[in-house]
């Protein structure tokens, strides 16, 4: 079992070409955990987390575009 785990977690993924896509899962888990601690009722968690996730992605995209434009000036 430990050897299987080591072989599964033993080689780094080559993420140099698509590391930017890794922003999506981390934004998703951050928004779910944050809203799990903040929402008063359990059923409010998922809609609030979806809104926060969308806001984070849009915010990151806007910052990315702004910085990209800044480097082009």
């Amino acid at each position, binding site marked *: 079992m*430990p050897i299987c*785990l*080591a072989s*599964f*977690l*033993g*080689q*780094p*993924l*080559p*993420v*140099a070409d698509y*590391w930017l896509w*890794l922003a999506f*899962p*981390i934004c998703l*888990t*951050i928004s*779910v*955990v*944050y809203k*799990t*601690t903040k929402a*008063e*009722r*359990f059923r409010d*968690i998922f809609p609030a987390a979806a809104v926060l996730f969308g806001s984070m992605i849009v915010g990151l995209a806007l910052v990315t575009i702004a910085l990209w434009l800044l480097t082009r000036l």
Partner: protein
Amino acid sequence: MASDSAKLKGWEFPLAAVLAWLVPGAGHFYLGLRKRALLLFIAIELTFFIGLYVGTLRIVDPAQSMFWFVAQVLAGLNTIIAHLWSTSSYAEATTPLVRDWSYHMAVLYTGIAGLLNLLAVFDTVIRAGRANVGQAPLPAD
């Protein structure tokens, strides 16, 4: 197991906090908030294991980055296991450690998993304390 609306004894606060640190979501489970506990467990462990999958078990190592190791330790028991494995002679012999994009993304993921668990620990203590200071408990799941 305590209930969210029940008054906790003095020793149960540190117990709930330690449980919440050791296993993400365990503090909420102790308070009787099982759905929230499951959600926290899945989200935090998923973040941590995506990090390990991207960067290998070797990334949990204070010799590489003490700052990020402190953040990783906040993720609890799985960090300690990963650290023991990463510093073993077997791992050093078989698993390469390359400080490239994978390494940095993996350290970021595992460190953020730890910081998210810190948020869960604080939430456990706050929820546990509401009943004791006379405030209305938050609704159960």
